[in-house]
């Protein structure tokens, strides 16, 4: 009995052991559940997935409200490898039109990326392909479609200007928190320069997922979700009709047309030729087409209007005339003789036959080389300046105030600055202080080292049209419903030449068209002012250049036309510019014969 008693007391030992474990466990639970917060974070990381909701990208219209770019739904075929069950691969490949080996490599690529996370199996099926495949897709668990949008272009034009979108690259991913791999971003043109406006703002929904990454529902009924903000529509300053007409005229030619509304700086048309159909760089065919285009000997991807620089030839005489007038080395009545050119020592600058001597207006009208060589020397060697260098730098400063030799800071991407050589350049070339006005005399007639882009040429026409100032050229007129644009586009940029002198040059330009080298541009309805030019081309036939604006008073359009390898400026550039002006101002073409010959001309 004593034994019994003592053994019965052992229950307390046993109960104590039970309770000891109980206490250890409670302590552990206190630690896990009450003290350590890291588990809550881990649980959230496990289960919460932020899904980006893409807003529709803004549309692009032309200045008259014609739609230039819109969005079209496309479908990416996604796969979550772990959810894929055995299936008939032959049938599957047949459905997708895929060779079996390719299927295998695509699938293992997705598997290697992550067996549990979704990855793009095949990109960008069209709506038709999508509806065909989607019907049968239920047979293949683990595969599903995700819709994206692609840009579409109802008119195959202005490819360079509109630009294109593509997946973000690593450099963007490194510098921006906004984009994730696979996101689209504007890569060139308007798409790039107005990316932030067009893209809107991504929304975010927080979803809960299970261990296989399957979406199970929204977190707290979307309490923390943000709505996407749609991209804003853009109104481009382009005139779609004019643009299309310009591209038609430039068919089978190399060169460019840039047309600007002088009073606003709005770009009406910007043609570079050869170009391409913007729809080629969209969707699944893009990579393939891009390679083809970039290997094309005609360089259709090269935007000549912004990136090609030419010696401006005789069109530059306008600038030299204005600079001379401003500096007082020229007067309207200043006359120089021409001996079939300009001849000093061994230097000969040829000129064509014409009456001599000439005053300034007539010198512009007949584009006398000798006159402008003499005027240039008078400018650079003027006694006002202590040295050739000072004379040149004064000249250069005035020239650059026309928006030449520097970026215009438009809203177009890949715009080049052209080149107005610095004094230092000549120091290097000829040796310090070892050059004089004669060494750089080719600048007098717009040849030599000088380089100007077609956009800058059009802007030069715009400057003269405005009699002394320009508004920074731009391609977007309005963003969304707001009319206010970047204020820099409303700012008048004055040249360093007084307005009064521009009237003299404008009169001379009128004379060029009415009775001079560009008489083929003459119109009965309005007065066109213009100037031809021929850019010397060491590699082949010279480039034909024409800049113009019209009407003379209250100009509506300023234009530059460059046709490469077309020879003398008047032959090709003048009629094409005049057709563009006519098309824009009156909306109809009175000279169908000229139009036809221009369209049909093949110039390489």
């Amino acid at each position, binding site marked *: 009995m004593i*034994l019994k008693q003592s053994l019965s007391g052992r229950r307390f030992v046993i109960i104590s052991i*039970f309770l000891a474990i109980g206490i250890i466990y409670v302590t552990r*639970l206190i630690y896990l559940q009450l003290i350590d917060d890291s588990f809550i974070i881990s649980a959230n990381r496990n289960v919460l997935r932020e899904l980006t909701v893409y807003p529709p990208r803004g549309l692009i219209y032309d200045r008259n409200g014609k739609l230039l770019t819109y969005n079209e739904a496309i479908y990416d075929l996604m796969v979550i490898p772990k959810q894929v069950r055995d299936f008939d691969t032959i049938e599957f490949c047949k459905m997708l039109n895929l060779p079996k080996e390719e299927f295998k490599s695509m699938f293992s690529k997705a598997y290697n990326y992550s067996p549990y996370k979704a990855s793009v199996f095949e990109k960008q099926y069209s709506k038709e392909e999508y509806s065909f495949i989607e019907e049968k897709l239920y047979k293949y668990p683990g595969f599903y479609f995700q819709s994206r949008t692609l840009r579409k272009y109802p008119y195959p034009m202005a490819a360079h200007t509109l630009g294109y979108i593509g997946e973000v690259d690593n450099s963007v991913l490194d510098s921006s928190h906004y984009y994730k791999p696979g996101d689209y971003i504007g890569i060139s043109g308007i798409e790039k320069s107005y990316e932030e406006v067009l893209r809107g703002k991504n929304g975010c929904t927080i979803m809960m997922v299970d261990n296989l990454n399957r979406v199970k529902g929204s977190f707290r009924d979307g309490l923390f979700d943000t709505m996407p903000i749609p991209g804003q529509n853009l109104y481009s300053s382009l005139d779609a009709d004019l643009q299309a007409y310009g591209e038609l005229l430039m068919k089978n030619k190399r060169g460019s047309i840039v047309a600007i509304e002088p009073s606003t700086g709005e770009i009406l048309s910007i043609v570079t030729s050869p170009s391409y159909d913007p729809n080629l760089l969209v969707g699944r065919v893009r990579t393939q087409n891009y390679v083809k285009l970039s290997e094309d000997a005609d360089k259709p991807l090269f935007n000549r209007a912004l990136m090609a620089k030419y010696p401006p030839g005789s069109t530059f005489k306008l600038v030299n005339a204005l600079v001379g007038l401003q500096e007082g080395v020229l007067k309207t009545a200043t006359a120089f003789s021409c001996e079939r050119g300009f001849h000093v020592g061994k230097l000969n600058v040829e000129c064509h036959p014409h009456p001599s001597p000439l005053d300034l207006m007539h010198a512009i009208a007949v584009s006398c080389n000798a006159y402008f060589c003499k005027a240039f020397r008078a400018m650079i060697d003027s006694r006002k300046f202590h040295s050739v260098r000072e004379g040149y730098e004064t000249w250069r400063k005035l020239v650059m105030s026309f928006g030449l030799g520097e970026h215009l800071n438009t809203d177009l991407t890949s715009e080049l600055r052209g080149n107005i050589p610095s004094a230092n350049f000549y120091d290097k070339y000829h040796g310090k202080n070892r050059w004089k006005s004669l060494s750089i005399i080719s600048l007098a007639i717009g040849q030599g080292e000088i380089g100007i882009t077609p956009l800058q040429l059009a802007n030069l026409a715009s400057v003269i049209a405005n009699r002394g100032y320009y508004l920074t050229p731009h391609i977007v007129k309005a963003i969304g419903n707001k009319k206010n644009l970047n204020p820099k586009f409303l700012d008048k940029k004055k040249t360093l030449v007084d307005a009064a002198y521009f009237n003299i040059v404008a009169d001379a330009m009128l004379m060029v068209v009415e009775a001079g080298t560009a008489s083929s541009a003459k119109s009965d309805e309005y007065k066109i002012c213009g100037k031809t030019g021929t850019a010397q081309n060491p590699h082949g036939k010279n480039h034909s250049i024409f800049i113009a604006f019209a009407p003379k008073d209250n100009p509506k359009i300023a234009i530059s036309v460059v046709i490469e390898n077309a020879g003398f400026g008047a032959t090709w550039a003048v009629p094409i510019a005049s057709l563009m002006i006519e098309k824009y101002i009156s909306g109809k073409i009175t000279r169908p014969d000229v139009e036809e010959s221009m369209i049909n001309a093949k110039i390489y």
Partner: protein
Amino acid sequence: MVTLYLILVTIGWVNIYAAVYSEEHKSILDFGQNSGKQLIWILSSLLIALTLLLIDPKIFNTFAYVIYGVNLVLLILVIFVGREISGSKSWFGVGDVGIQPAEFAKLATSLALARYLSAIDVKIQNSSTKVYTFILIALPVLAILLENDTGSALVFTALIFMLYREGLSGNILILGLMMVVMFFATLMIDKLIVLGIITIVALIIIWFVRKNRKILWISIGLFFLTAGFIYSVDYAFSHLEEHQKTRIDVLLGKQVDLKKAGYNVNQSKIAIGSGGFAGKGFLNGTQTKYNFVPEQSTDFIFCTIGEEWGFVGSLTLLGLFMGLLIRIVTVAERQRSSFSRIYGYALASILFFHITVNIGMTIGLFPVIGIPLPFVSYGGSSLWAFTTMLFIFIKQDSSRLNLL
């Protein structure tokens, strides 16, 4: 006890529902789901319970060896004709439903031990009694080990508590507990350090007991025994199967592999830890509902409770279990028949082991050993077996005055 049982079973059912809950299967009565099936198990368990309460309690004493024998045969049979589920060949397939004889082995062995040890002429102090007791336990353990169900086999070690109550020397209990501590210590810390500590402790003890030769020799003997044990653990561990080794390594924090073996425990800890004080609310557990925690309706059911009901919920459940264990022990003590008392202690021991190991593994204090949480985990065999065990005891207690 009946009330505690009903509460626990209900908690189990509700949380199994929460564990398998999904938008597609909203009904708790969906019999395609574990929650629906568990209801069937619960109802049939209640039927079993009722039956047990109605029949003559003496029958268990009488047929204890028969039940033991039949069970042993089944245990062996299952090795040959059983169905293999997750590496253990311990299931009899009956249509869609599996029956695990190992679950009932606990009951059968408890009965047999109670029968054997309650015999008047049997004293546990006798060596022969020890041998027979050992054999009674060892036979089913061996069979279960052959079924490759280590978890269930380990459960039988808990019977040491019952044996201790029935007169087994306290030293053996201490030795057993020490061995568990040593086991973890050896694996967690370098064996030489453990050995060093043991040596220092032993030297101190020897210094104090140097006068008493007998205790001195015992101490020295114990020291060498412990050292030997440490070496054998180390040796055994290095010869363990790879997956078992990893599980233990993960538990000890020696190896952190969150994607593979550590995944279960880690996700389980996240589930319980993210429950906080009050939990995420019924059916709002993200860890368990979205399958981050494996086997959440069976072995990891405690996660669901910890996550959805928080500290409050897990404390409540732990409290209920503690209450049940203490209640069983107390009730066992008041039995007049030693059969009932022994059986009661066996029941408490086995329940204790299950609870300790199951909850311990979910909170990362024990290696992952696949044994269910009594009354709560999903599973017919386990629920039936535990119900039967508990209600046999309840019946014994209710008729204790008639039994001797």
